[in-house]
């Protein structure tokens, strides 16, 4: 900033009417040059877990292109060759009913990932709206809503899932996503609520409200950009959690029925597979599941590191 630019007019004597009307009119004092202003250099190193991202991308791409990689019906049963070890015809072998595990992995992955994404999308939407209402609302509403989430959190989520699943009847992809979605929002909602509670006091939110900004305007323009980075980690972890929960449920026989192929329902064959020594039936879907979950955990952890390193805007 050049020194000539910082010309300060003396306060006294007071400018006369004529001065105000004539010469001073529109002579802005202390015009600042912004051209030669030093710009901050953004030299922040972003370290992303590239290996995890690449592996996850390959798995996701494989699932999306399942029809090209493994054309045909994945649930086709080759009754002549049940529980066949990996060979040229069946790269990953076949299960007890003679279905190609290679085809099932890619087709089933679609279902598993879809459930993860759907459940997370639903729970994130619920969490953001619930958290914002709680954070921006009056104290009594906030207290009430937070006690509700605590009650929700204190009950084992698996119990609620089983309970809801029992109400909804036979599971399908959408119903299981809904069940997993409506049970996994409280932790995100609590984070959103805390951030909103601090942000709503800030003067730019007050200014926005004075200018006539409504609830949705303030949520989208002021709250969301600030809490999004801190919930990103939880959102990714939520996808992971939903996929894992689906597998758990299916393994226990509470989730998707056997005819809907997912990584979880593939694992539900595991008990019989273990007895016959057909390791590929359990190991291969298990490996895909574990690798996917590990990759997501890595990405989630990296996101959390990013958020913690940067300056918080609270």
């Amino acid at each position: 900033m050049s020194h000539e630019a910082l010309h300060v007019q003396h306060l006294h004597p007071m400018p006369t009417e004529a001065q105000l009307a004539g010469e001073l009119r529109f002579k802005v004092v202390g015009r600042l040059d912004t051209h030669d202003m030093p710009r901050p250099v953004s030299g922040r190193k972003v370290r992303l877990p590239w290996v995890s991202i690449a592996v996850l991308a390959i798995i996701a791409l494989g699932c999306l292109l399942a029809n090209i990689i493994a054309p045909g019906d994945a649930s086709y049963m080759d009754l002549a060759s049940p529980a066949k070890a990996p060979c040229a015809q069946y790269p990953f072998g076949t299960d007890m009913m003679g279905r190609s595990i290679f085809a099932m992995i890619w087709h089933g992955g679609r279902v598993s990932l879809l459930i993860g994404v759907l459940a997370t999308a639903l729970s994130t939407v619920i969490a953001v709206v619930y958290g914002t209402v709680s954070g921006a609302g009056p104290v009594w509403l906030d207290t009430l809503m937070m006690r509700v989430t605590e009650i929700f959190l204190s009950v084992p989520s698996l119990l609620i899932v089983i309970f809801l699943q029992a109400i909804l009847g036979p599971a399908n992809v959408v119903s299981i996503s809904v069940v997993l979605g409506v049970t996994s929002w409280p932790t995100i909602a609590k984070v959103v609520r805390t951030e909103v509670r601090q942000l709503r006091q800030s003067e730019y939110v007050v200014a926005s409200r004075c200018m006539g900004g409504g609830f949705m305007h303030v949520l989208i323009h002021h709250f969301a950009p600030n809490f999004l980075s801190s919930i990103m980690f939880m959102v990714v972890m939520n996808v992971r959690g939903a996929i894992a929960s689906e597998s758990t449920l299916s393994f226990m026989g509470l989730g998707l029925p056997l005819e809907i192929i997912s990584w979880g329902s593939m694992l539900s064959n595991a008990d019989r597979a273990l007895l016959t020594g057909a390791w590929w039936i359990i190991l291969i879907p298990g490996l895909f599941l574990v690798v996917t979950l590990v990759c997501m955990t890595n990405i989630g952890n990296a996101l959390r590191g990013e958020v913690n390193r940067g300056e918080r805007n609270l």
Partner: protein
Amino acid sequence: MLNSDYVRVEHLSHRFHLTRKIAIDALKDVSFAIDRGEILGLVGESGSGKSTVARCVMGILKPTGGRVIYDGIDVNAAKLSRDENVRLQKERQIIFQDSGSALNPRMSVRRILSEPLDIHGLSRDREAREKLLIQNLDFVGLDPGVLESRPGELSGGQRQRVSIARALLMKPKLIVADEPIASLDVSIQAQIVNLFKHLQAEHGFTFLFIAHDLAMVEFLCDRVGVMSKGRLVELAPTRQLYDSPQHPYTKALLAAMPIPDPRRERSREIPVYHAPEYVTRQEWTRVGFDHYVLMER
């Protein structure tokens, strides 16, 4: 006292509840009016209720007693028509003390300035909007280069100018500035106060200016109100207040103004004002032309 119909603050009281048992009376029966095109200054020590008045006038706080009438609209009425709400939102603008927190650090200056336009769906045309933004930056002495900057990249003075530009964008009729210069250093304070003076002369808005710097208030304001412990104790045209202060608190406040002469500064005595512990009946008394003092009966 209430000689204008433009902005009327009538018997305003506000009580903050800290806990269930402890409450603070931030405002006690404050009344005044602001005329169109006038610059009214409010001075007083920290905690005297200046900001609470500003927030009640802007409708950010709902006063526990009294009311604020803006051009015939009761600002804190439970139900206002859509037209009235839009008028209040467009015609009143506030400028905060700390421009660092009054501007969203994640938004560029362009988005910050566009916000009021977006809310009210004004000047959607790209070119027209660009012109409007540049014009308003020009009013406050910033060049268009700052449009892409974020508040964190600007200096305190530049940020405060951006806040002022945002307030000006809606062509407001009333600007409430809550200690707009308190967080700036002295040379920048002078710039900003000069800027206010020019802008007010140019745009003719009504201005409620809150500060604790008496020299700045003397330079800028037409009339000055003095607040102490939640009460308005004196209200007079600037010259009159500075020449012949009547209330003991005003006298003490004005006597505390530093004199730029070390010898006189060292030798003078500053009267100390102790607010009476038990407030007896007080009453507004007219002591001169447009000059009112809160006096004990």
